[in-house]
């Protein structure tokens, strides 16, 4: 049912390989399109899809009320080192802070590991005579003639973008501001990123790295956003362009262009956001999200309806299971981000044998090219997708976009030659082994966000998406002892769906060090009030008066002398002694939950950072998603699928989501446009009023 009036909201999630686009009308009507990405002009695919969907829905460009965009442009620029010619300005004596990082390697025992090259080489890191003490005293004042010399050097080196990070500028930004003002005035074409404008958080390496990443990707991000805007205008779409941030809210394009380091993890964040939206509609407070794509599996936690944030993460690091713990493989970013644990266990993850005959899956991936062996694009090594095809979970034949045909024989050959034959085992057992090892890797991500944080998965529901999430979800849920698993509509386009559910959101943070007598409501209040004013001013400039902005205040708290802190929310940013006491008590409870112990009784707590989250307006789109195009599953009515030793090969009914009208016991294979949901024999599945598949994984034993 198509109407020519009414608004259309448009979302585009641009990944390295595919671009997913969705249009949603006022009545919940949904149109989707998946097409190959068009690097380096990523906006091209989006604009092509927009044109197509406007034609399909028979609407003019003016009817589009919002364009929400998730992008990997910034992340790709880092991974491929295609950023701007960037310089860094530091305090005298500290130009190597960026290169030394935290002096860590992501793993031991690897003598041939190379520290990634710094984004700004040493000769483009300029030291300035200036120094503030930790208390803000000027130990060495800035000297204007030196700034003129700096200007000359930047010109001579043809610098496009410059980051400035001085010691203690998180608390005392005055020197950075002087340099910023000077450079903006005298080098108007050079983009200037000040650490104190990016994020006012203590720890010089992390803040430097965050500022440098921001500076490095800023021109590319700006060009991409400008090109997108121009393309939208040419299709008479004048609606605001909004970009998804790593922390899960949308921000106006101009803000994203100035602070691209806030949108690095745009796509993954959108998926978590969509899951939180679904949970809210179903009144489920606690969920674990599972997103399995081509190269990785990602997990995140939503508790009491809130997403969990991470104090820092790394960009540009290659995947390894230990990264999360040790770090060192990439640049460490402290921009606000949803806490997402990631392991190299996606459909393209390669399976191989070590010298002792041990079977491994990932983190190396077959990538988009050659891809899994069954894609017949030259890949000879077996991947997780090959195993899932062998097991009958993934349907052989043409893939959704029609360019690729999945060949069962090729999957069989790869697994037989590389795994089953050397081990002297049956091909099906080998395939099952690959599937289970990938699951066990994925469990590490799921556990990292749940049990390892003192959360009992039995109190959570699993929401599975990404092309491969629904294939593995039920088995993983059983392992994790999650009681209920949800597979939302359009699981393969879920991140794009999430873009439609984000409101405008801004995040700010400020390091402090308040303990003992200094930890008073007044001290906190003055800090928060200052942050609140800055944030409300930003919202006002974006068209949101103060009464339309909701604010949440979080605090990073630790025991005095500890190195790691716990983040807790305070509902209202109005502090009283009673609120502080309650917070302290909550901190101790949470500490015990996380680490299994409390500190010595007399150990005082310390507030080390205050964070402010502002949400503008209402969350849009409470409407139901009603896909205009239903998945097709008519090609076959059953497929042989393997369900472990207990069941063996089973003739499994292949059905469409819409065919499940009442609860039924598996086995089923629920084939859709972009994914397959696997339901094992005896496991109950139904479809709820919002089109989600609900799998009852309570008490299901793993095979």
């Amino acid at each position, binding site marked *: 049912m198509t109407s020519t009036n009414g608004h259309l909201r448009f979302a585009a999630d641009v990944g390295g390989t595919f671009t997913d686009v969705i249009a949603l009308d006022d009545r919940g009507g949904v149109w989707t399109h998946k097409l190959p990405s068009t690097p380096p002009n990523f906006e091209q695919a989006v604009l092509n899809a927009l044109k197509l969907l406007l034609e399909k829905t028979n609407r003019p460009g003016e009817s589009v009320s919002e364009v929400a965009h998730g992008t990997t442009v910034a992340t790709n620029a880092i991974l491929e080192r295609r950023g701007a010619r960037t310089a860094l300005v530091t305090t005298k004596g500290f130009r190597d802070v960026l290169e030394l990082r935290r*002096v860590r390697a992501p793993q*031991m025992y690897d*003598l041939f590991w190379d520290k990634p090259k710094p984004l700004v080489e*040493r000769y483009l890191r300029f030291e300035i005579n200036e120094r503030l003490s930790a208390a803000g005293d000027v130990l060495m004042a800035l000297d204007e003639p030196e700034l003129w010399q700096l200007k000359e050097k930047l010109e001579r080196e043809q610098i496009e973008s410059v980051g400035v990070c001085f010691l203690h500028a998180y608390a005392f930004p005055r020197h950075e501001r002087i340099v910023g003002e000077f450079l903006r005035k005298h080098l108007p074409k050079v983009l200037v990123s000040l650490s104190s404008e990016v994020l006012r958080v203590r720890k010089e390496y992390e803040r430097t790295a965050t500022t440098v990443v921001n500076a490095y990707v800023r021109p590319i991000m700006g060009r991409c956003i400008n090109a997108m805007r121009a393309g939208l205008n040419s299709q008479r779409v004048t609606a605001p362009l909004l970009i998804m941030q790593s922390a899960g809210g949308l921000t106006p394009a101009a803000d994203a262009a100035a602070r691209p380091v806030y949108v690095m993890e745009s796509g993954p964040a959108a998926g978590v956001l969509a899951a939180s939206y679904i949970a809210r509609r179903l009144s489920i407070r606690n969920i674990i999200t599972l997103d399995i794509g081509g190269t990785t599996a990602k997990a995140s936690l939503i508790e009491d309806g809130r997403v969990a944030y991470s104090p820092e993460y790394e960009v540009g690091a290659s995947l390894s299971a230990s990264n999360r713990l040790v770090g060192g493989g990439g640049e460490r970013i402290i921009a606000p981000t949803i806490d997402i644990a990631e392991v190299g266990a996606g459909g393209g993850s390669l399976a191989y044998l070590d*010298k*002792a005959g*041990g079977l491994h899956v990932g983190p190396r991936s077959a990538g988009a090219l050659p891809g899994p062996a069954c894609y017949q694009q030259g890949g000879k090594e077996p991947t997780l997708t090959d195993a899932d095809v062998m097991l009958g979970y993934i349907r052989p034949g043409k893939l959704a976009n029609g360019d690729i045909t999945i060949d069962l024989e090729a999957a069989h050959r790869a697994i037989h030659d590389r795994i089953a034959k050397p081990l002297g085992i049956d091909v099906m057992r080998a395939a099952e082994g690959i599937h289970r090892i990938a699951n066990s890797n994925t469990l590490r991500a799921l556990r990292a966000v749940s049990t390892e944080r003192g959360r009992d998965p039995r109190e959570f529901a699993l929401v599975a998406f990404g092309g491969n999430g629904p294939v593995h979800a039920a088995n993983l849920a059983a392992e994790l002892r999650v009681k209920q698993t949800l597979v939302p509509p359009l699981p393969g386009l879920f991140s794009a769906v999430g873009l439609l559910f984000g409101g405008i959101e801004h995040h700010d943070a400020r390091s402090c060090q308040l303990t003992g007598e200094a930890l008073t409501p007044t001290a906190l209040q003055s800090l928060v009030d200052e942050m609140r004013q800055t944030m409300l001013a930003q919202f006002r400039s974006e068209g949101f008066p103060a009464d339309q902005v909701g604010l949440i205040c979080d605090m990073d708290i630790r025991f005095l002398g500890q190195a790691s802190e716990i983040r807790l929310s305070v509902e209202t940013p109005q502090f009283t002694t009673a609120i502080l006491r309650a917070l302290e008590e909550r901190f101790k409870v949470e500490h015990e939950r996380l680490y299994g112990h409390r500190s010595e009784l007399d150990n005082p707590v310390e507030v080390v950072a205050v964070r402010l989250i502002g949400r503008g307006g209402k969350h849009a789109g409470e409407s139901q998603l009603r896909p205009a195009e239903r998945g097709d599953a008519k090609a076959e009515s059953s497929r042989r699928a393997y369900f472990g030793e207990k069941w063996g090969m089973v003739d499994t009914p292949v059905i469409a989501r819409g065919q499940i009208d009442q609860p039924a016991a598996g086995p089923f294979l629920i084939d859709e446009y972009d994914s397959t949901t696997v339901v094992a024999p005896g496991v109950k599945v139904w479809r709820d009023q919002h089109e989600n598949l609900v799998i009852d994984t309570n008490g299901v034993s793993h095979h």
Partner: protein
Amino acid sequence: MEALLNKFGNDIHEGDIFVMNDPFDGGMHIPDIFVVNPIFWKSERVAFAVSTAHHLDLGGRLPGSSACENTEIFQDGFRIPWLKLFDAGQPNETFFTLFRANIRVPHMTVGDVRAQLAACHIGERAIHELIGRYDVETFHSCATDLVNYTEQLIRAEIATWPKGQYSFTDYLDSDGCGGPPVKFHVTLTVGGDSLTADFTGTSPQMRGAMNCTLSFVIAAVAVCVRSVLQESVPNNAGIFRPLKIIAPPGTAVNAVMPAASSMRGVTGFRLVDTVFGALAQFLPDRVFAAGEGGNTLVIIGGQRADRRSYVYYELLTGTWGARPDRDGNDGLCNIANIASNIPIEQAECDYPIRIERYGLVRDSGGAGKFRGGLSVEREWTLLQSETHLAIRSDRRTHPPYGLQGGGNGTSSNNILHHADHDEVLPTMISTRMKGRERIYHKQPGGGGYGDPLERVPAAVAWDVKNDKVSLEAAHEQYGVILNEQTLEVDEAATKTVRRQMRSRH
């Protein structure tokens, strides 16, 4: 663990938790506390959860419980032989009382012991879950398989190594008490699928506190062997099975009572350098030249203005030697440990110190076809009245070695800037430092690999552009002549100079 079982044998019950830090009772050195939680399943002991942590302070002669010139373990700190921290679930209050009274920052140390307890509980819970899901027989057989699997992987690889005997010698500059260099000698014997590391010929145990236990030597050899493997293997006891370690008692690598060992870390790093040096003789394409040779400890401790004690424990690390096919990493944690730096902004907020500089040192990497990593320097100003200063550094007279014709890395240095003069401090020292004085430390640079005259001139030019190598060193060490303005390679002049340098060799 052997010592624990010998001592308590059948007296290990549910709810018991054991504690120990005594190097002469199975421990490593005084600051390392071991907490052991026996795990039971239906009254049968099935496993142990063990946690080890290096603590900030365990009493003893000086803050940080570590000083190179300690000559007896009693100076190192509070010694805990194996005993019960919890007896059938009841905390050993006598121990906790005695413990708190003998350490400098009890709220920190005891808090960290609690964290170790929590870690053990988590381990226990995980093992219980595992056994609950499968059963105890499956658990045991899988655990056995996993250890066998590691052993099998390592044996398979050792079997591909050329049989024979290979020796190497390396040194600590001093015994920590101003004495002579300490010699470390190893002979590796590759025989079939096993490896013997014989440390006979190593110096007798030293007066100072860098002595180590046999367990530490075994660990050092295991690190080296794992690092040259082409497969990654699970970390478990299977690693040790193909290795035979000979370390005569009474030597620096197997000390006996009452040797001090609090600063034994640097010996571990030197053992790793020694074993790598021997491995390089038969696996030249898998071993790198020597790195900085271990992290430097700089400990500043005393009382604040309000008389509260503080211990600022700075651990400076490190840089890598050049590899057979690439440069060493500039400024990176030593391969034999995982450590991080302390953020300057955090340190200056928490302690009465200011950091004046922190960076890489030009011309400090050993020259070679592949250049050694640059050394790291750092300088601290003390912002309050006189305080204690201890430094553990090394490799001033025995700099990190290069391989296959690569040059050595540069030496380390410690300079105390007094108000009116500069004083070069010994590599290992405990002394006093006055307010407003600055202490400077420069780490050693990494060794180079291969002939510097074979280094690609463009790589030398790039290093000069980045101020990692000077114009002079480019000429003198690499025979590369650059245009002083553009820093481009003068190909003709470089050819001539390199020819002359080769003929001089």
